[in-house]
């Protein structure tokens, strides 16, 4: 026995959620060849089919690209700090891909590692994630190489699966998902087929071992030479979370803010003394690979990667983690 819902009914739900003052984020056709997750103003913007996956990720919903930490005000010798109010608007992410949702429980580890990031946790509480299982993939997808699949339910509150005729099967995952779809679905005997997903190219959960030995290899330059040092991979990635903290404003009033940052930028690890432990691009690329496939699993037991392929899709020169790891493995690492 399954539960199904029609696509028009989903769109009516979107209308309801928006009227309730909730924020709805979904895949939107931004340009003829660009689909990305955006807050929607109306149900017609929501894409429920016809794309592989958006070029950005849903991490922005819990970890915005710009965030005020607190405001400061200086009057003479008197300084007042005003903490940023905790978020309070409910968010619903609709039609997220499983590789985006899976990133959220992965990010929970670092944002709660001894020191708990209150704003991040509050946004996680306020967010319900409804995923849409994949029926197609492209040359960059590699979820099956990191232990995931097109119908992965990690991080998802409800999983939608396309039945191919304008209806979707709804598989509840959590209480949050149940409360969203309660009374909105019909019982059915139909169940959606599961796509096998992209062919597995490697088991990247095992690459940590070879990375242990590969740090000093001179081939890092050859494997990553075309990297231009922008942040397109990091910012499109569902799991990258490096950030910068900077004071914005002036000496009398302003705010300390947090912005997305990327380990690929030349100044990321530059010391005030002028010393830079990662002054060459291949060292910075190596860091990205290590952080995702060696450091994070060592610390938190999970890869910092869901195999979505956005790094390569967004890269001006089609680099990204899979090409680098495949180059490494081709040379017997």
């Amino acid at each position, binding site marked *: 026995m399954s539960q199904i819902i029609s696509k028009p009914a989903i769109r009516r739900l979107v209308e309801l959620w928006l009227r309730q003052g909730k924020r709805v984020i979904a895949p939107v056709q*931004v*340009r003829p*060849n*660009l689909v*990305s997750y*955006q807050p929607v103003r109306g149900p017609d913007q929501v894409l429920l089919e016809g794309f592989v996956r958006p*070029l*950005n990720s849903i991490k922005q919903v819990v970890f915005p*690209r*710009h965030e005020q930490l607190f405001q400061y005000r200086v009057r003479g010798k008197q300084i007042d700090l005003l903490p940023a109010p905790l978020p309070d608007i409910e968010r619903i992410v609709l039609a997220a891909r499983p590789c985006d949702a899976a990133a959220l429980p992965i990010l929970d580890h670092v944002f709660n590692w001894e020191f708990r990031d209150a704003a991040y946790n509050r946004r996680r509480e306020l967010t319900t994630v409804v995923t849409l299982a994949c029926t197609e993939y*492209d*040359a*960059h997808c590699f979820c099956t190489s990191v232990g995931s699949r097109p119908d992965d339910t990690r991080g998802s509150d409800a999983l939608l699966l396309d039945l191919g005729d304008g209806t979707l099967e709804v598989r509840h995952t959590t209480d949050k998902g149940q409360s969203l779809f309660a009374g909105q679905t019909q019982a059915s005997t139909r169940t959606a087929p599961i796509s096998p997903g992209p062919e597995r190219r490697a088991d990247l959960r095992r690459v940590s071992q070879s990375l242990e030995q590969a740090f000093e290899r001179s081939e890092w*330059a*050859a494997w990553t*030479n*075309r990297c*231009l*040092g*922008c*942040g*397109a991979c*990091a*910012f*499109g990635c569902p799991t990258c979370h490096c950030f*910068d903290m*900077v004071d*914005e404003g002036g000496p009398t009033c302003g705010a300390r*803010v947090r*912005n*997305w940052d*990327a380990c690929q*930028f*030349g*100044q990321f690890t530059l010391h005030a003394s002028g010393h830079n432990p990662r002054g*060459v*691009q*291949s060292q910075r690329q190596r860091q990205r690979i290590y952080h995702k496939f060696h450091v994070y699993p060592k610390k938190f037991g999970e890869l910092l990667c869901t195999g979505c392929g956005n790094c*390569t899709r*967004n890269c*001006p*020169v*089609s*680099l990204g983690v899979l*090409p680098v790891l495949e180059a490494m493995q081709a040379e017997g690492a």
Partner: protein
Amino acid sequence: MLQPLRETCRRLLQDGTVQVVIGYGQAVRAVEPYPVFITAPDDVGQLVWNEQCRTNLVKYLLRKEIRALGKPAIVVKGCDERALVVLQQELQIDRSQIVVIGVACDGMDEPRCEVCDAHQPRFADHIIGHATNEMQPAERRYAHLGEFLERPLPDRMAYWKAELERCVKCYACRQACPLCYCERCIVEKNRPACLDTSATLKGNFAWHIVRAFHLAGRCVGCDQCSRVCPEGIDLRLLNLSMAREAEASFGHRSGTDPQAELVLGSFSQQDQEQFIR
């Protein structure tokens, strides 16, 4: 054209004229060609040439990691080549230390290709192939931009507000641009901090306008900025508008004449100064 290209590169490497060839490679058809750096003559088989070779490789002549590979040969299309000319005029490269392999191009299916007048490279040391597409007349050059600029100002402002709202400050535009080569970009300086580095509307406007200003009279219209933007922002419109202005006001079209003087890098008694009374 692929065979002559590979042969030329093989010879250059074999006889030691260059130590590295910067060209296009492609592992699988489904993924667009990307830059490759060939150092062994036998590896020239990695080089490809097709209608997807959209990257402007000239940027790599400025990357220290690539400079370390030795004297380069570089594969350029007519549009890419213009950046080479500007870099030479700005004393960023020594043209005599680079072997330029110009490849004739009939278009990469990008907006600038429709109005291209540089299908055949002009300043290369070796020319591969012959373009069959006609050169477009000069009047067509800023056709797309012209259409856009005809829209009323409030419309254009609304357009840029909507577009720049999506900018995440990844700086792919800057990193891909062959003419952005400051060791320390203005956004990386903090004494003083001139721009908000945040990806807010204010910070995004500041960045893209300042970058357009810094490209005034220099942008060659290679369109990498638009191509690489992960948010699909059509940045070429901003940067080309300054190029159009440079041509209108100073008769200067960057990267088309190695003998021409830089428009913002030179002064002439004949410069129009009607704004000074």
